[in-house]
């Protein structure tokens, strides 16, 4: 058991996969966020403030 934990080579692979998957998610969401139309972005950002009923 102990030898398994100290010598296995999965430590080399797991970080690569983890980083790769995360980098992809970051990249895709960042691209999407950047491509959002400015007027749409503005409208969405001010949604909580556009409520007539508020005092």
């Amino acid at each position, binding site marked *: 058991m102990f030898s398994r934990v100290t010598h*296995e080579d*999965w430590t080399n692979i*797991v970080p690569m996969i983890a980083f790769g998957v995360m980098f992809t998610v970051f990249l*895709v969401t960042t691209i999407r966020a950047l491509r959002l139309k400015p007027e749409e972005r503005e*409208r969405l950002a001010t949604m909580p403030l556009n409520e007539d009923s508020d005092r």
Partner: protein
Amino acid sequence: MTTSATAPTTTITYDDKSVRQFMIASIIWGIVGMLVGVICATQLSWWQMNGKFLEALTFGAIKADGISFLTFGRLRPLHTNAVIFAFVGNMMFAGVYYSTQRLCKCRTASDLLSKIHFWGWQTIIVSAAVTLPIGLTRGKEYAELIWPINIAVALIWVIFAINFFWTLAKRNEPSLYVALWFYIATIVTVAMLYIVNHLSIPTSFTHSYPIFGGLQDALVQWWYGHNAVAFFLTTPILGIMYYFLPKAANRPVYSYRLSIIHFWSLVFIYIWAGPHHLLNTSLPRWLQMLGMLFSLMLWAPSWGGMLNGLLTLRGAWAKLRTDPVIKFFAAGITFYGMSTFEGPLLSIRAVNALSHYTDWTIGHVHSGALGWNGFMAAGMFYWLAPRLWKTKLYSVAAANMHFWIGLVGILLYVASMWTAGIMQGLMLGQVDTGGTTLKYTFVETLQAIQIEYILRSFGGLLFLTGFIICAWNVWKTARSGAAHNDSIEVAVPPKAARDTMTLRETLINDPVAHTLIGIALLCLWFFLPPHADKVALVLSALLVVKAVRTFHRRGSVWNEFHEKLLHNYMPFTVLVFVAVAIGGAVQIVPSLIVNRDKNVEGRLQELYTPLELAGRDIFVSEGCYNCHSQMIRMLKPDVMRYARADVADDFSHLGESLYDHPFQWGSKRTGPDLAREGGPIGSYEKTDENGNVIKDALGNPEMESYKYMRFGIRDNVWHYNHFMNPRQTSEGSNMPAYPWLFDKKTDFKSLTSKIAVQRKIGVPYPAMNQHEINDIARVQAREIADNLANAQVVLPSQQEHSGNALAQYLADREIVALIAYVQKIGAYREVESENPRETRPLDPDSYRPKETASTGTK
């Protein structure tokens, strides 16, 4: 998307009654939960707080060294459940109902469902407040509630989900604001986590065993436990932040783009981080790595969200001086940043080696719970109260006082827990000058942090005082106004403006199809045996090439897909579910396949006898796991302190807890680890009818084995006295006394159904009828009781009993069953795997270099 000026309009009256109800419930339950927390904190400093203090309060009318429903082991689950599900749960529902109606520009879909949701949730909380102190528990942290309540929780959650999604379906605003995204993620993910972690088979109306055991149970539990923090205590509050903070500051969120990145990266990463609760344990290394890495990556989205929140206050910082709402929000978001910095830090294996099982974790949790949840709740309550009762906040000064008292309370609490945790962690690992023995006993390390424990209680008391002031302020505000439901005239958008995407369009399109197939191929690369994994990798690369070419050809389709997603709640929900389900499946599915007795290396747990199983259920019922772990980590200080000196590699192995339903690895050591407490079946010297020892030809006494009774590292009398008065056997211990165990009868009758369920969930008990089970249990109980009676133990409540009469009395009592269990903990038999190094599909830990192919057994 805008609606035309000539569009038809309608007048909406919001259901603010439900918001008021949830808010009031949150404040009341918050005070209850925090009060129980303060009591629990004092119990760690003064053992008398486990019931003995009632002697003084009642001038001697109540006499007991401990009272069952007041012990730390039973009250601590009540505290955590009350704060998480009652305080934050009700606060979350108030915020979600208020903001969803306004962001959707429509009334909540069904008043009836809102009522069922509110009263159902409060009934669940009351049920928990009754069942937990009387010892009815599943024995898993934050998942202690018994199975009938679990079903009620699931049903009420579904009611909430129906009401929420129905409201989305009826909305008059086509776009989904980012707060709604966080609510959707909360509802979907909590349902998934709760159902999977609560899968159990009942043995009676109040008891069940989880279907997962050992490593599987540990992994599923902390997948749930970590994500309860993520999706119950974080994502809904982030949604609340994105709605209420712009309103309080009267300016839009700093960066809507950042909120998009914040949402998707947080939802995707959080679900993978659960294994960081099991670092350095017998959890496979690849899962530990996965948990640690994804935890570290959480820094990015968490701090993105924190900065987005704080920068929303740009230009409004002057309000900090005058507006208590902004004060609470700014401090709450700062605590979010601090605790989400600390969380990944504690997930680094080297840091975790010091911090885990100590009060550092407690400090971390409370910086999030008190600072983030508590302060965001207070800010929201102070913002909502004047609007819900159409008046002014009764006292801004009192709200400011709440803020400062609460802030000092949190800082005192967190700082003392950091100090206590780091100090105890260092002391536990300190060796003497020769470097061969440990310098401090466990009790000495506990006594060294008593000052910090007292300061923690005081900090908690201050925070509670702040919330009592809040309750008074909200009450006076409500009394000064009248309950009010907002009305608004809204334009009704054309049906075609929203929710036009079908499920087919959601899943079968370029971006989703390429992403899902890509993730599937990467998973196959990860899990498949050599050569097959390379094929998966090549296919992944080819898919990337194809995706790039498709994007060049039909790039606009990819853009349109995401745009449409923002106006279609159901496809959005499906994709959120896919994102969180992938993370869960990658962790849990391989462990389900690997965690089998044929796969264990070296050690396989011995089955509990019926009496030991009864004792284990008492151990779980008393909440002993709240203070005692059963996991010797692969760390030198752990092995030096808890492992046997004459056994090589004596850390806890995966197979030693394979049949534990539920697992009892623990998460905090207020007392020492128990993994090596048990021992083999004992033996005794044979005597003739005159009581003389029979000797063999060499003059050595002839020995005979007991049938079932085991002897661990301490004898039965030690354990008997320890449960009667822990300070008699361990000077300076803060453990409660358990006098009721000496009077309460063991539940022998239920053992038949319990063992039947154990067989169903995979524990290889032989077929036994109820008489056999009862006989085995009774024989073992009598062996232990005789042993105790022969040692002339004292039983204060039955002083007239001695000898056989005492043994007969004790054999039926819970104390004997509990001793039977404690003497069994950690017992295993050694096994040799037929082919231990054979590579197996879906078992990454089976890939190892040939030269390390030893079994690791002693």
